[in-house]
């Protein structure tokens, strides 16, 4: 297997050092930079497969650096930031980041996210492309639902779902971004008139989330719209 190079950009040297060490333990080659300008220089001279980018940095901040990076490179970028506001996440993702992880991060979670991004970009790039054309495959971000095989893969990894979970996910993935109420999900999936209640649906949603999300408490795909319903967040 090819060794991936990861560029860690942060003005705090201890973060860079500890994170670099952890990544090396995972088997990645680590490159470091301490501000946006250095990061851009690194990209010029080295092959980089993924960037872990801090936002608040001197000289050239993360978001500006991201804009410049996106002009030339299409590699995955994960923003690491102490800013936890929803608006910060939205602005980061709209500027072209692939993921947004808040500091202080959980190491295992961050590693999982790095893995997931790398898999999506370098292992299944072509496979996903083919699948998207065929009508029997639903694709949303790293989620791939093969309706013929009734099989779900998350970033290329197969996930085992129960029949009910599969039906719920299929319904939601058919209409990404659309908010379904529990009643709607219940009537379509269980196909019974008697509505067993919000909680039944919620419990299933939670189980699915535990299977497909890296951090079920902070889901990327399957989101609860509190007080309204459920939806699958739409990704390219």
């Amino acid at each position: 297997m090819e060794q991936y190079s990861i560029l860690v950009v942060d003005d705090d040297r201890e973060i860079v050092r500890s994170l670099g060490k952890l990544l090396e333990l995972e088997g990645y080659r680590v490159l470091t930079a301490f501000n946006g300008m250095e990061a851009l220089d690194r990209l010029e001279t080295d092959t980089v497969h993924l960037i872990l980018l801090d936002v608040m940095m001197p000289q050239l901040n993360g978001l500006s650096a991201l804009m410049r990076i996106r002009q030339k490179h299409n590699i995955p970028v994960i923003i690491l930031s102490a800013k936890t506001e929803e608006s910060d996440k939205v602005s980061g993702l709209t500027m072209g980041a692939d993921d947004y992880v808040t500091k202080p991060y959980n190491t295992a979670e961050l590693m999982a996210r790095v893995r997931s991004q790398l898999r999506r970009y370098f292992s299944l790039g072509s496979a996903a492309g083919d699948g998207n054309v065929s009508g029997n495959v639903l694709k949303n971000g790293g989620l791939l639902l093969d309706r013929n095989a009734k099989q779900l893969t998350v970033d290329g990894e197969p996930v085992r779902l129960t029949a009910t979970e599969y039906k719920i996910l299929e319904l939601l993935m058919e209409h990404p971004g659309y908010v379904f109420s529990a009643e709607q999900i219940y009537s379509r999936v269980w196909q019974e008139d008697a509505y067993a209640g919000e909680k039944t649906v919620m419990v299933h949603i939670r189980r699915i989330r535990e299977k497909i999300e890296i951090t079920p408490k902070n889901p990327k795909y399957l989101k609860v719209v509190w007080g309204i319903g459920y939806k699958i967040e739409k990704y390219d």
Partner: protein
Amino acid sequence: MATRLKNMIKSAAEKLKSVSVWAKTAFVLWLLGGAVASFAAYRFIYQHNFYIRWYSVSYSSPLWATYALSLGLLAGAALAAYLYLHFFRSRADGWKKLKVRALDQLSAELLLAAAILTGFLWVGELRSVVFQSESLAGFFVFYGLESLTLGCALLFFPLALLFLGCLILLIRRRLLGIWGDTSWISRLYRRWQKATPFEKQLRTKYLLSYTLMAGGILLGIVCFYLLSTWYGADELIILGLISEFLTFLAAAWALNNRLYTDLGQLLGQIGAMAGGDLSVRTSLDARSDLYPASCQLGEISESLQTILDKQMRAERMKIDLITNVSHDLKTPLTSMIGYVDLLKQEPLSDAAQDYVEVLSSRMESLKDMIQDIFDLSKSTSGTAELHLETLDMKKLLEQTLGDMEDAIKSSGMVIREAMPEMPLKFTGDGKKMYRVLQNLIGNALKYSLAGTRIYIIAERRASQVQVTIKNTAAYEMDFTSEEIMERFARGDKSRNTEGHGLGLAIAESFVKNMKGGLQVTVDGDQFKVQLTFPVVEETRVMA
């Protein structure tokens, strides 16, 4: 029939008994005075005509004596009444029993006018008999002396009663001490004293025009009246026309003043200010009576804007500070977590591994706490982002309970829910509401006595969506509901349980931002949290 009449008389007698002696005396005196005075008048007219017609003796002394007697009796009756009341008043506080009756509310000026009018009529009517001019009394005399009795009964007796009645009422008023309250002039004067300088200014300004108007109208009436009797006087026509023209001018000036327009503009300015527009300045003419007020309002706007700007700046600085501090706390914590994770992968002794685990879990809670402090600060400063939507409290509760299923199961607590059939729509931020409910239910799970039940009741109360979460505490709650709401307050003072005590404070702050209410009640061992939100009436059913 007879018995009914008897009863009526009986009850009337009963009522009469309850009337005070003084009132009875006054009533009898009143009637007596009227009768005596009118009899004196009768005697006067009779004698006068007697002398004139049959003896042709004019103006003899007995005639004047009776004239004087009739007037004297009238005046004397009044004086007697006054003196009686005067002494009555000084005696034994009996007068204090006087009560203010409907007649006492009549205007004092009206009474005075009535007394003067009836007095003048009395004197005038008597005089008219002497001078044989046309008058009511003369009318009776015209039909012969025999009709005089009737004339006196119908004219002089009521006149005397009215006059005396007015006097008695005026005296009562003095006794009651309500002269000032019932007098128009006195009330006007009092109002004038209480008037603000602005009101005085306006009233004096327009007094001239109103007086001119009244004078002009009167003059006009007089002129046109004379015109109708004195035909063809050009001067009068001109005078009448001029006075009417002046009246018109005065009226035009009084009515066409800009006060109402200006007042409307001033109210508009106040309205704009109340609506949040602090940039409105006066649009009134500098000569307007309301110009100073409008200018002052503008100044208030201006200083308010300055204060608001200052406060906004301070608020923004505070937020920046919080953001920076939390960033500065998070950065070292991030590398600490990184190194602890690296340590975990090193070969360590069992004890060292144990220490690293403790470090790791403490750092996790420190991380949560920093985030909670940040969220709380943002929320209490009112700068937290809110994504308000119409939510269904029922769904929200079910979703939260479903989401927390594992925590509920592992806590061993039983949750009893009571929800209505109908949705409970309200306006709120879904994610924040989830956090609120999660905190409240989490607290209930954490602090409940094993084996007790947690009650969650959602209902609609009038125009409010209300959620009640009740649980029985495992610890003695030696705190008030106010104390528990404070930051870092915890259900158990010994701090044995997990958590840092920000949950309730965060919940309260979030709810407040969403215009809801959170109330905590501690009743013995029962801990109760109540959430209230204004209900959103459903206008359409979502597909």
